[in-house]
C-alpha cells in the first residue's frame, strides 16, 4: 500500500458542502423567523438563533472527530448503540414530562435530549449490520422478520411516546428492505393499504365495501369463461374482506381518536376541521411569490400564529422571504443530498456502508416528504423537523452524526477497492 493521502482529499466534498450549506440556510432562516431587534446579534445565545449557532459549532467539532475516526467504531458496535438507545427510549417513557402531547424528552438541564431522534441513527446502524451479515437474505421470511423486528421495536416505543412524526419515519425503511431483497409485492401491498386508508377516511366503509364487491363481480363477469374463475373469486373475496375489516376498524379508530389528531387527519383529506395551521402556512408561502420579500422582510411567518415557526414550519419563512426560488433551491439541495448518498452507496463495495447509506436516505426522505408536504398542505400536520434546517439540538446532532458517519465510511472506499 502506498502512503495514504490526507483524509481531506478522500472526503466527498459535494456531499459535505451540501450538508453545510443546508445548516447555514437553517441558521439564517431561524434568525429571520425569530428576529428580535432588541437582540440583533446572531450569536446572542439568549435567542434561538444564538443557540442554533452553538449547536452547529458542536456538530462541526463532532463531525471533525468522526471523519478522523475509523468507521469500524460504527459497524463493530452497531448493536451496542442500537441497544443503548432502546434503553433510553424505555427510560423516557417513565421519566419524561409531557410537552405538546408527546412524552419524548429527557431534561438534562442544559439540553433536552430526545432519544427518538437518535433512534433513527442507531436503527440505521443496526439494520446495516444485520443485513450486511453473510447469511442474511431478506428473500427468506425468517430473515425478513428479524429485520422487521429491528425496525418495529423502536417504532412501537416511539409511538408509545405519542411522537407520531418520528414513528412514521421508521416506515420508510420498507424501501431499504426492498432494495436488499424483500419482495416487491410487499411494497405494493403497502401502497394498497395506504390508498385504502385514505379512501376509508374519505368515504364511509359501506361505499368502499360495496364498490369492492361490484369490482369483484365485474372482474368475475368478464372472466366467466376462464378456467381460473374460482381463483379470481377467491382472491377477490379475500381482498374485499380485508378491505371491509380494515376500513371498518379505521372508522372505529377515528371515532376513538382524540379530537386533536382527528382534526389533523381530517385536514388532509379535505373534510375541514381545524385547518388553521395549514392556512397560515399557505398564506406565508403565498406572500413570498416568485422571489420573496427579502431577508428579514417577511411578516406573515412572524406575525402569524404558527406554533413552530422555527422548527416544524421553518419552510414557511423560507417561502415568504425567498419565494419560489428559495423553496426550489432548498428542495434541490435535499434532492442532491439524497441522490448523492445513494450514488455513493451503490459505488461502495462494503455492504455495511451500502446498507447504511440507503438507510439514512430513507430517514432523510421521510423527514423531507412529511415536513414540506405538511407546509404545502399535502400531508396532515405532524411535528417533524426538516433535516439540518430546523431549530433544535437533538435533531441537528442526530442528522450530523448520521451524515458525517456516512462521509467517513465513504472516504474508506479505497480500502475496499484496492
Amino acid at each position: 500500500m502506498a502512503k495514504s493521502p490526507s483524509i481531506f482529499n478522500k472526503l466527498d466534498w459535494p456531499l459535505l458542502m451540501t450538508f453545510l450549506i443546508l445548516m447555514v440556510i437553517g441558521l439564517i432562516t431561524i434568525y429571520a423567523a425569530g428576529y428580535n431587534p432588541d437582540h440583533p446579534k446572531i450569536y446572542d445565545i439568549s435567542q434561538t438563533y444564538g443557540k442554533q449557532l452553538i449547536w452547529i459549532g458542536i456538530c462541526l467539532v463532532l463531525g471533525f472527530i468522526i471523519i478522523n475516526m475509523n468507521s469500524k467504531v460504527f459497524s463493530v458496535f452497531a448493536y451496542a448503540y442500537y441497544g443503548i438507545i432502546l434503553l433510553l427510549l424505555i427510560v423516557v417513557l417513565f421519566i419524561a414530562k409531557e410537552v405538546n402531547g408527546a412524552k419524548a424528552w429527557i431534561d438534562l438541564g442544559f439540553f433536552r435530549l430526545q432519544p427518538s431522534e437518535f433512534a433513527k441513527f442507531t436503527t440505521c446502524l443496526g439494520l446495516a449490520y444485520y443485513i450486511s451479515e453473510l447469511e442474511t437474505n431478506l428473500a427468506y421470511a425468517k430473515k425478513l422478520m428479524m429485520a422487521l423486528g429491528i425496525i418495529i421495536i423502536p417504532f412501537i416505543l416511539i409511538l408509545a411516546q405519542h411522537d407520531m412524526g418520528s414513528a412514521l419515519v421508521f416506515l420508510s425503511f420498507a424501501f431499504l428492505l426492498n432494495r436488499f431483497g424483500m419482495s416487491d409485492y410487499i411494497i405494493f401491498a403497502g401502497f394498497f393499504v395506504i390508498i385504502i386508508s385514505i379512501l376509508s377516511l374519505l368515504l364511509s366503509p359501506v361505499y368502499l365495501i360495496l364498490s369492492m364487491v361490484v369490482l369483484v363481480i365485474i372482474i368475475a363477469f368478464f372472466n366467466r369463461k376462464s378456467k381460473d374463475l374460482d381463483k379470481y373469486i377467491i382472491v377477490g373475496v379475500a381482498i374485499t374482506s380485508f378491505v371491509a375489516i380494515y376500513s371498518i376498524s379505521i372508522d372505529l379508530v377515528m371515532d376513538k381518536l382524540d379530537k386533536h389528531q382527528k382534526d389533523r387527519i381530517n385536514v388532509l383529506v379535505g373534510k375541514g376541521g381545524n385547518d388553521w395551521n395549514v392556512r397560515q402556512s399557505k398564506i406565508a408561502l403565498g406572500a413570498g411569490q416568485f422571489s420573496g420579500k427579502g431577508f428579514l422582510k417577511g411578516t406573515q411567518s412572524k406575525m402569524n400564529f404558527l406554533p413552530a415557526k422555527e422548527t416544524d414550519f421553518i419552510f414557511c419563512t423560507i417561502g415568504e422571504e425567498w419565494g419560489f426560488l428559495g423553496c426550489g433551491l432548498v428542495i434541490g439541495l435535499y434532492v442532491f443530498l439524497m441522490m448523492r448518498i445513494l450514488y455513493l452507496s451503490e459505488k461502495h463495495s462494503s455492504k455495511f456502508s451500502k446498507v447504511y447509506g440507503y438507510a439514512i436516505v430513507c430517514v432523510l426522505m421521510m423527514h423531507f416528504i412529511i415536513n414540506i408536504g405538511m407546509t404545502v398542505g399535502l400531508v396532515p400536520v405532524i411535528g417533524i423537523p426538516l433535516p439540518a434546517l430546523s431549530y433544535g439540538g437533538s435533531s441537528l446532532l442526530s442528522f450530523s452524526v448520521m451524515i458525517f458517519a456516512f462521509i467517513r465510511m465513504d472516504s474508506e472506499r479505497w480500502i475496499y477497492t484496492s
Partner: protein
Amino acid sequence: MQDIFPQRIKMIQGVIIFFSFLFLINLFYIQLIDNKYKIKAKDNAIKELIEYPSRGLIYDRNNKLIVHNTNQFEIMVTNAEVDANLDTSQLCKDLAITQDYFLESMKKARKASRYRPYVFLKYVDDSNYQRFQEHIFKYKGFFGQTRFVRDYPYANGALLFGDVGEIDSSQIKKYADTYTYLSGDYIGKNGIEVYYEDLLRGQRGIRTVVVDALNRVKGSYANGENDNDPIAGKNLQASIDINIQTLGEELLTNKRGSIIAIEPSTGEVLALCNGPTYDPNLLRGGNRNKYYPKLLLNKYKPLYNRAIQGLYPPGSTFKAPSALVALQMGAINPNFAYYCPGYYPIGKKSLKCSHRHAPCRNIEEGLTQSCNPYFCQVFRESIEVSNSKRFQKDYDRWYKNICRFGYRRKLGIDLKNEKRGNVPDTAYYNKIYKNQWRATTVISLGIGQGEILATPLQMANSYCVIANKGYYITPHVIKGIYANGKFEPNTAKKIKVNVPIDKLYFDRVTDGLEMVVQAGTARASKIEGIALCGKTGTAQNPHGEDHSIFVGFAPKVNPKIVIACIVENGGGGGGLAAPIVSLMAERYLKDSLPPASLNKYSSIKNRHLINFQIDE
C-alpha cells in the same frame, strides 16, 4: 453475497423525484398562480381578527330583561408596529393609566410576541375608550377591541344568575370536547351562567383582513371566504319573577338565610334568594379579581348558595310530610287523637312540648298546635305499625316513603353544586348503635330533628307535593330557550315524580296547614283575602339562637306558589320566616303589597341580625 437487485434503487429515487416535483408544482401554484394566497402590495400583510360573540340574554317569566350585555373595550398592541416617538404621556392620560403600568405592560407584550397583537389594557370603559379613539392616529400599533361584559339591571340574584369571568387553563382543558376556548375568553362562573354556558356562549368569529404598512384595514382577504361570523349565544327565559326575587332579597337584608319560591304545578322556581347577598355587577370585568376574594373570605359567606347547599334540620315543617306518610302506611287515621301531657317519655328522659295546650283530637289540631309529643307518637306508630319487634322493616318502609318527597337526593335543579341532604337509613343506625336501637332512639326524626338534614329547596319541594296533592316536578330556573326566533320550552327539566298518597289525606293535612296560619303558630302572618297554608319550624342550633323556618303555599285551592324560608338565628318559625313567606306570597298573588303589609315589610327589612359589609 451477490447483490441481486441494483435496479431497485429506482424505486426510492422515483419516490424522491415524484415528491420533489409534487412539492414544486404545489409551491408554484400557491406562490405564483392561486390568488387566494396572494397579497398585492409587498408591504401588505394579512391579519386574523377575533370577533367575540354576544352572550345570550336572560329574561324573567314576564319577559323583563334581567341579564344583558354592555360593551367594554380592550386595548391591543402589536409591538413591532409601535412608533419609537409614541406620545406615552398622552396615551396614559387618555386611558387613565400610570406610566409604570405602561412600561410594565409593554414589557410583557414584548416578551409575548413582537408581531402578534397583545392585550395591553383590559376593561376599558366607554369614556376612556372614546378619548383613546379620538387620538388613535397618534398611537401607531395600538387598536381597540370590543368585549361584551354582563350587566344585571336589577342588581340581584347574584348566586342565581352567577357571573362571567376569564377562563382559566384548567377550564380550557375541561371544556376541550365541547368548544375550543382561548385564554382571555369569558366563561360562566356560577349559577345559570355556568349551567347554561354551552347555550349562552355563542361562537367566536374570525375575520381575515388585509392591512397596509400603516396597519389600516384594506379589506377582507380572499373575499372573506375563510371568514366566520360570530354566532350570538341563545337567549333564555328564566322562570324567575324578578319582582319577588327583589322583594325576597330585600327582606333578607342583613340576615343569613334563604327564600325559595316554586310554582308547584310546573316546578318553575319563582325566586331563589340568599342572604347576605351582593350586587352581581360587582364582579363585572376587572372588578372580579378585586372583589371575588373578598366575598370568598367574608365571614358571612355570601358566595354560599344556602337555597340549594345549606343543610338544615327541617324541624316542625317536617311534621306535615311525616303525618302523610303515617296516614298512607295505615299507622294512624286522620282522626288520630293524642293527649299531650306536656312531654313525651323516652326511657328515663323525656322530650318537651313547646307549650301547654288542649288535647289534639285529630291531625289538623296536631298540626295547628305543632305538638311535639303528638308527632313523636305518630312517628312511633309508623315504624311500629306491624310489630314493635320488627320495627326495622317498618322503618325501611317509612324511610322509602318519606324520601319520595325529594329528601336525601339531588332534585336535579339546573344549578350546580346542589346538596342532597340526609335521612338516615337502617344501615346507618345499625352501624352507630351496633344494632341496639328502638323506635324511641330515633324518635326526634318525627319532629324533623336529629340526623335529618334538608336544603331549603327540598323543604319547598316537599310542600309542592302537598300543594299538588301527590306529585312534584323537578324544580328548575330556566323556563325555555329562544332558538331561531322560536321559543322552546325547557322540557329536559319537566320530569314529574309521583308520590302515591290518597287525596283524602292531602286534604286533611292541608286543612291543618291552613289552621296553622288561621289560629296556630303562624297566626300573625295571615294574608288578607288569601288562604295561606303552611307550617312553622324551629331548627335547634347549638351555636346560638334557633333558625326560624316556614314552609307554605297559597292559595289553598289550586296553589300558585310554594315558598320555603329559613332565617338563621331568626328564632321561632312564627317570628321572621312566616311573615316573610306571607309577604312574598301576597306580592306574587296580588302584584303589589297593600299599605298594611308595607309596614311589616319595612320592619322586617330593617331587622338586622348581622352587619354585612364588603370592605373596599
